[in-house]
């Protein structure tokens, strides 16, 4: 410890400007450092006491409604026109020239031909919320959903869009939302990672590990990857051949050999601490094993989440694990798709229903299950991507009608949230009559972040981290506002 402190003073007065702040947790277990001392960002002036950071629970600025969050991030940008934002005008104009200016991302493939929603809208729930027939299960939970139809980020491509929605600004290098929440609130569980990023069996999302980066926050606030297969958390689960008895035998022999070595070095605290670290590691393995073991859930639960159906098995499993993690005190869980599979520039006829089928039932099950367990009140569930899509056709090579798609639209799109103090059965804001621009009660990404932090009991302007003497925030002085009308 003494060494640690001296080193802190010597080595890291200006830490985190560069370097390991960005590292992708070479073993993915940075949270286990518990107290991150050397990694403290220090002010330009020498500090008398080094800063230390940990994951112990923190008291928020005021009484919170939300305690945990599960975010289902749909990279690529689901089509709000086909899923959430019905526009009779588009049906009327179908196939005709778009009456006005279109903000294209890719003019080479642009057309001015209006494309009406490709699927029917239905009214769901007591509130009568209009949503696509592609999402019947999510629709059935509409009385719990707070649907925002007026999202806007102005970042006209995926990467800046993801950064805006997930780190507060459309630029690389900043801490992710989950890092801010765990930095501000710590974790209720000290045996599990505070912030878990769950990846898709077919691969990492666009931007890979940058999506759960701690940016310049200390690295214990970095997301820990939960893999889609065993071992779910690398190094927190033995490889198959050592699982169970073989590793227990190893630990027993290790204990014996270390004990006799310690006898030759009586009073050597370092050696004793290392022996204890193996015991701690073993306990953590057990806790993780328990949290990720869905075989402990009933058959009914498996069915509810669609784990018995190959189409929904993956999202179902991950949603169920997310619930088990939140139950055990994990602060923030984020589910990712691979690549940018919601980016339907072409073949939207085929691809959008496929994507919807994978997530619809598991997402609804998650909401239902959280609600039944009384967890939805304190758990924010978020479902959305980094952008929406245009009301006109995009043609990529093949012009056959079933091959068409829609280009990016970051000027108006939809997402929904539920639980944790968000108003259920509520539709907020609106786009223009063609679902191109958000025009009514516009919610910028920074308003969304300010509102979200508010529900966690955090003032987005007061949740700061000092970097080079400057207090940094998630919303970064962009004028984010808490939107009261989203709150229950």
């Amino acid at each position: 410890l003494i060494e640690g402190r001296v080193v802190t003073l010597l080595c890291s007065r200006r830490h985190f400007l560069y370097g390991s702040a960005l590292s992708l947790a070479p073993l993915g277990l940075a949270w286990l450092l518990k107290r991150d001392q050397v990694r403290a960002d220090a002010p330009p002036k020498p500090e008398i006491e080094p800063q230390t950071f940990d994951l112990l629970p923190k008291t928020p600025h005021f009484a919170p409604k939300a305690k945990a969050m599960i975010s289902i991030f749909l990279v690529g940008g689901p089509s709000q026109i086909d899923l959430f934002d019905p526009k009779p005008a588009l049906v009327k104009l179908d196939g005709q020239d778009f009456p006005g200016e279109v903000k294209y991302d890719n003019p080479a493939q642009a057309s001015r031909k209006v494309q009406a929603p490709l699927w029917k809208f239905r009214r769901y729930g007591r509130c009568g919320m209009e949503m696509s027939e592609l999402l019947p299960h999510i629709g059935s939970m509409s009385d719990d959903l707070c649907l925002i139809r007026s999202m806007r980020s102005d970042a006209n491509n995926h990467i800046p869009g993801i950064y805006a929605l997930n780190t507060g600004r459309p630029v690389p290098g900043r801490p992710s939302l989950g890092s801010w929440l765990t930095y501000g609130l710590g974790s209720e569980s000290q045996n599990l990672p505070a912030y878990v990023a769950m990846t898709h069996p077919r691969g990492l999302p666009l931007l890979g590990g940058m999506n759960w980066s701690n940016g310049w926050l200390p690295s214990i606030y970095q997301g820990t990857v939960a893999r889609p297969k065993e071992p779910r958390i690398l190094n927190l689960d033995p490889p198959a051949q050592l699982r169970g008895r073989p590793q227990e035998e190893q630990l027993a022999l290790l204990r014996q050999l270390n004990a006799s070595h310690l006898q030759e070095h009586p009073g050597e605290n370092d050696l004793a601490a290392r022996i204890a670290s193996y015991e701690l590691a073993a306990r953590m393995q057990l806790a993780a094993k328990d949290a990720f073991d869905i075989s402990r859930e009933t058959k009914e639960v498996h069915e509810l989440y669609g784990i018995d159906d190959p189409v929904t098995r993956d999202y179902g499993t991950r949603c169920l694990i997310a619930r088990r993690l939140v139950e055990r005190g994990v602060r923030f869980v984020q589910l990712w798709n691979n690549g940018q599979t919601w980016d339907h520039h072409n073949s939207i006829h085929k691809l959008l229903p496929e994507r919807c089928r994978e997530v619809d039932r598991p997402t609804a099950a998650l909401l239902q299950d959280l609600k039944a367990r009384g967890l939805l009140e304190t758990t924010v569930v978020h479902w959305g991507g980094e952008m929406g899509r245009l009301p006109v056709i995009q043609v990529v090579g093949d012009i056959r009608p079933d091959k068409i798609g829609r280009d990016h639209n970051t000027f108006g799109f939809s997402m929904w949230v539920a639980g944790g103090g968000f108003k259920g059965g509520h539709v907020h804001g609106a786009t223009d009559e063609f679902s191109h621009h958000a025009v009514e009660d516009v919610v910028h990404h920074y308003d969304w972040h300010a509102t979200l932090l508010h529900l966690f009991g955090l003032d987005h302007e007061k949740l700061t981290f000092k970097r080079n003497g400057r207090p940094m925030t998630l919303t970064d002085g962009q004028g984010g506002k808490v939107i009261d009308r989203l709150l229950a």
Partner: protein
Amino acid sequence: MLRPSRHALAAATLLLLAVPALGRGQGTGDAPLTYERDVRPIFKALCFRCHGENEMPKARLDLRLVRLIKAGGKSGPAVVPGRPDESRLWERVEADEMPQGEKKLNASQKDAIRRWIAQGARTVRPEPADPRDARFTEEELSFWAFQPVRRPAMPPVRASDGVRNAVDVFLAAKLREKGLRFAPEADRRSLIRRATFDLTGLPPTPEEVEAFVHDPDPAAYEALIDRLLASPHYGERWGRHWLDAAGYAETDGNIGRDRPRPYAYKYRDYVIRSFDADKPYHQFIREQLAGDEMARRPLDPADPTTRELLTATGFLRMAPDVTEMANSLVDRNQAVADALKVVTTSILGLTVGCAQCHDHRYDPITQEDYHRLRAVFDAAFDLTRWRKPSERLFDVTTAAAKQESDRIEALAQQKEADIRRRAEELARTILDRELAKVPDGQRDAIRRAVETAPGKRTAEQTALLKKYPRVREVRFIAGFLVEYDPEAHAAFEKERREVAKLRSTKPPADRIMILTEEPGRQVESRLFFRGDPEQPKQAVWPGEVAILTQHRPRPDLFGAPECAPASSGRRLAYARWLTDGAHPLVGRAIVNRVWAHHFGKGIVGTPGDFGLAGDRPSHPELLDWLADQFVREGWSIKRLHRLLMTSAAYRQESRRTPELDRIDPDNRLLGRMNIHRLEAEAIRDALLAVSGDLNTEAGGPSVPVAEDGEGRVILGRQSRQAGGAYAMIAEGVGREGYRRSVYVESRRAAPLGMLETFDLPVMTPNCDARRCSTVAPQALLFLNDQAVIAPAQRLAERLRHERPGDRAEQIRRAFLLLYGAEPTAGEAQACRTFLQSQAGHFRGQQSAGPATPSNPEQQALASLCQTLLCTNRFLYVD
């Protein structure tokens, strides 16, 4: 003034305070508190900035002299001697209203202030008339580290002291004062393991251990040290220590994209070569600070000496420098400040960098001092004519290689021009096709519009084109063929890949990262107000920090004349001044560094800070004697090793005793050796060595690191699957993957997972002392990670190969390889039992599931090997 010896006695407890200088002197009994010793350091650190150093002190209150404090400011007297409760200063401090920032005084600081006022607000001596004369106190000026090195007299020796050489004489005298003496000599097995790891970073082989243990020569130990000092692995080990101090990294340090430095490895190899050759330290320092000014002009890339000298200046290019991608004045200034920080902490052991924006908070170093020292480097780091990292490379490619490269480039460009021409031809026909689709009546107007340069179009033309987004300029279509004609695009892409392939056959350019000056350029150095390069103030001349010149004439650092006109010669003049043998810090700093690596802790516990905020030397006389001896013996690091390692102190046992723990719990007096955990590199290298995999290839480009798709950093080459950045995969690197860790690529943003877990430092900008953590991820890595499981399996293979069919012999061999010692009967028995029961488990697994390729007995042996690698006996050196 406090005598150094008293500091030493207090040092063990003082170290508990990160900043021992603050609040010192309290609690030392009845001695009255004084301003200079007890209160001023607190004010200097936290208050002078507003109340003393600025031209108009806030609230007109100046805290630099007690006289001025008593006189007070806007709100009247700040202190009423003897009456803290009537003192405005105390009121504000107690209520945490002052200081105003987030940093508040702690309880012991407040207590010191209150008691000082209560005792009458005393000073040690009459105060000067002008507060400017009180910039430094006598206490600061006479601080030990700023006094010249004086060879001390040897303390008396007694026969019972058990001394072997001069080092022991100093240590034994201190031990004796406490009624202690050296511990018995460690056994030979411990000694050879300790010495081998210390000098080479690798474990001794069983054969080396046995030879040493059974060597009847009374000088066997000295012979061992000589053999190890001559080992080619010595430079890899000790070069790595210097690379920490120099902040060695192979990336620029940008946020977001951490740009690689493909030639940084040459500096690494230069350092390793220098240590192997035992290059005299003064020469080593001169080359690194001013190699370019020592080289023959004009610089000849074909001359090996020139290349060596230029490579040495890579030392000044190691700090983060993001200006390739973010080249603002602030970024440039930061790059310079970081480089200077590396110089001062590594060579001087002083945190001069803290005086960049204001006078140093602890040490008697002024902001002028900082900028004078910086002026030495200004000609090379010219902020107004900045050269980015890519512009600071020296081309050493051979003429033949250049010629061949030019030939291939010309051919490639020719092919590219042809592709471009054909693509535009095609684009023209596509444009015609698109135009054919527009309404007949508008076609000509649209054609005219699209053929008009975008900047010259009328508003009508622009509006017209907006209606037909697929009608674009030929250039645009040619660049977007992927959308207009995917097949043609694919064909062109194929041709382009062939051109890229052709280019890849060029002989690689060979370059060196260097620091040089622009010939003949005069640079005017200025002090920056608050360290801000946008606010230059008065001009400053190059010069040494004043406190370091108080006992000798100030050096002339205007430049070594022989360097003109190619270079200012300032750095060479400075390097000579540092290494003339009389500098108060240079010698002390390096002997302390070497000491720290041998004994686990320096004589000064903070190798990068010998100032007031640093640690006090536990043995100041010994430090001075060593520094003096080091210079007298020709600045030879290897001689220093030999001296330290042949001492009785180094050869002691490491076992603690209750008596030692009671009297000297931190072992500052060295009544025993310190036990220590292996550093990150030594752990990985030892794993490779015992499994028989170690590839001892030395030098050259680094083994690359890559992300493996799970977000982990492993050895490998990054490649991208079709589809983009998120689909990264790492390709293996074969035998290269078994090279020593010093040759593993050092990316600031992506340290190798295995190494970072064991406290590999992140260079921001450098590291003076590594931390040594004990955390659960280390245990999880040893239990579950392929980085340990794979070497364990290969170690098991090795055992089967070397001791076929004999379990007992295999166990014995494993112990000898890992620990250099035989297993006890109990240990051997435990291992045999373990093997039997593990084999049973693995047999059960095989019958239950799909057959694994390995047989259960061999799997059991691998699992034993892994367990033995997990033990403290492997991870620690005693």
